[in-house]
């Protein structure tokens, strides 16, 4: 350890060598800079930074399984920091006949995923299955996306999103709901929410479905009501949310219902009139 008062607590240069400042200051230009400045042709130890940060973002996606299917919701906001930059972003994407993909996080990456999924759909359903065969189902879409996400993160260049895939298992009957994010982490559950929703909405959703298996007792109406309520609560408490959202219901009888421009209804604000000051009595 270095005992110099100005470098106290740092690794000692004599022991560990000087700190390589370039590591912390890695930029996308590291490669070019190195080639401009160095005279040797040996490969540099300069790291190349490739991870970006999300710029225009979408907030939570929330979702539930119920007896005969799944239900997903996501609002239509594209935020630029705290600026409500776009208010017409569609973050629920239909893939194939019965699969729905909900995406939160960076919007430019969302659009890239949209294109990736379109290509997947073309190659699988149009090219390979033109003369019939198995359609693309939710487990396939989820597995594919998880490979894309994990591959990108392994190249230090993640797609900055958290994704929920809803639909049906390969039997076409059992509801399917699974998550994948920018690290390639995946899990399945009867209640899934991304972003702020993971904190605020999941407890509400789990009031309806306390344990994974319990979704078999839930009707579409119950699930829908629970999701609508969660969207309203998110609008109350998520500063990057909008009261305009899309909602998709997929059922195993073949129904695919895509509702757009819904509003958070039944908001409660009236109690504000009884609130004065912040503690001690006020006029």
């Amino acid at each position, binding site marked *: 350890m270095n005992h110099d008062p100005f470098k106290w607590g740092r690794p000692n240069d004599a022991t560990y060598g000087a700190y390589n400042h370039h590591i912390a200051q890695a930029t996308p230009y590291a490669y070019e800079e190195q080639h401009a400045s160095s005279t040797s042709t040996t490969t540099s130890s300069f790291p190349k930074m490739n991870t970006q940060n999300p710029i225009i973002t979408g907030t939570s996606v929330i979702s539930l399984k119920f007896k005969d299917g799944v239900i997903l919701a996501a609002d239509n906001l594209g935020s630029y920091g705290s600026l409500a930059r776009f208010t017409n972003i569609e973050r629920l994407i239909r893939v194939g006949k019965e699969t729905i993909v909900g995406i939160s996080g960076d919007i430019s990456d969302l659009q890239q995923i949209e*294109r990736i999924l379109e*290509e997947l759909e*073309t190659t699988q359903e*149009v*090219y390979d299955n*033109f*003369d019939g065969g198995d359609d693309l189902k939710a487990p396939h879409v989820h597995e594919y996306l998880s490979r894309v996400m994990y591959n990108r993160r392994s190249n230090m260049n993640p797609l900055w999103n958290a994704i929920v895939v809803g639909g049906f298992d390969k039997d076409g009957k059992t509801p399917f709901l699974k998550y994948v994010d920018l690290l390639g982490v995946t899990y399945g559950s009867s209640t899934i929410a991304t972003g702020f929703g993971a904190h605020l909405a999941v407890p509400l959703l789990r009031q309806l479905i306390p344990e994974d298996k319990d979704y078999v007792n839930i009707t579409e109406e119950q699930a829908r009501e629970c999701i609508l309520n969660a969207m309203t609560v998110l609008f109350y408490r998520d500063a990057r949310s909008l009261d305009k959202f899309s909602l998709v219901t997929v059922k195993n009888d073949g129904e695919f219902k895509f509702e757009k421009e819904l509003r958070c209804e039944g908001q409660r604000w009236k109690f504000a009139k009884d609130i004065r000051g912040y503690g001690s009595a006020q006029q």
Partner: protein
Amino acid sequence: MTSIGTGYDLSNSVFSPDGRNFQVEYAMKAVENGGTSIGLKCKDGIVLAVEKIINSKLLVAGSNKRIQTIDRHIGVAYSGLLPDGRHFVNRGRDEAQSFKSLYKSAVSVPHLMDRLGIYVQNYTCYNSVRPFGIVAIVGGVDENGPHLYMIEPSGTCWGYTGAATGKGRQTAKSELEKLNFEELTVREAIKVAAKIIDQAHEDNKDKDYELEVTWCSLEETGGKHVHVPEDLLQEAIKLAKEDDDDDDDEEEDDDEEEDQEMET
């Protein structure tokens, strides 16, 4: 000309003294023996149909589809060497995907045909390759409406209102010429196509065949290239067979121009 004869038909990259590329012409021979393929450009879309010759009773009926899709809105039917056709379609798919990855829009049919024309033509220029043994009929609907093209082993790629290739092409062509494509709808064209394929099959009567029909139309299929629904297909087949019995006696004079074909 004295020099006609030996050698000039062995390589692609060598002209014969009277200006012919024999390899390309031989490729056309491969096509002429294949099952008939036709394409119709109607006012609201396109219809493709093939006469799928059944070479073995052991083949699963209704499977082994012959018509393929290049992009959602573009279909292909071809006659000739089937593996060549599959390679051609794969190239078309690559072109369509590469166009989409840059411009984020579906490729237009004429633009795709430009690219494929160049690709096919390339196979007539090098002695290390042979030309495509297919004639492909490519049809689709894009922003400018329906399009139908036929592309040959030479790379020739022209637009048509009705196109036919394969063994029964002469019969098919003379039937196509009778149609009014300005008024014809794809729904009607399915029946017409079934009938034409049935008539064209007369040239190949010793073998059984299956009819395969696809269509692409904004109104009927939402701009997607798909097989026609089974009920429409069966209805068309039924009509074709009925008509077939009616005009059995007047058909004789159709086959006579067969051998004039290859001159141009």
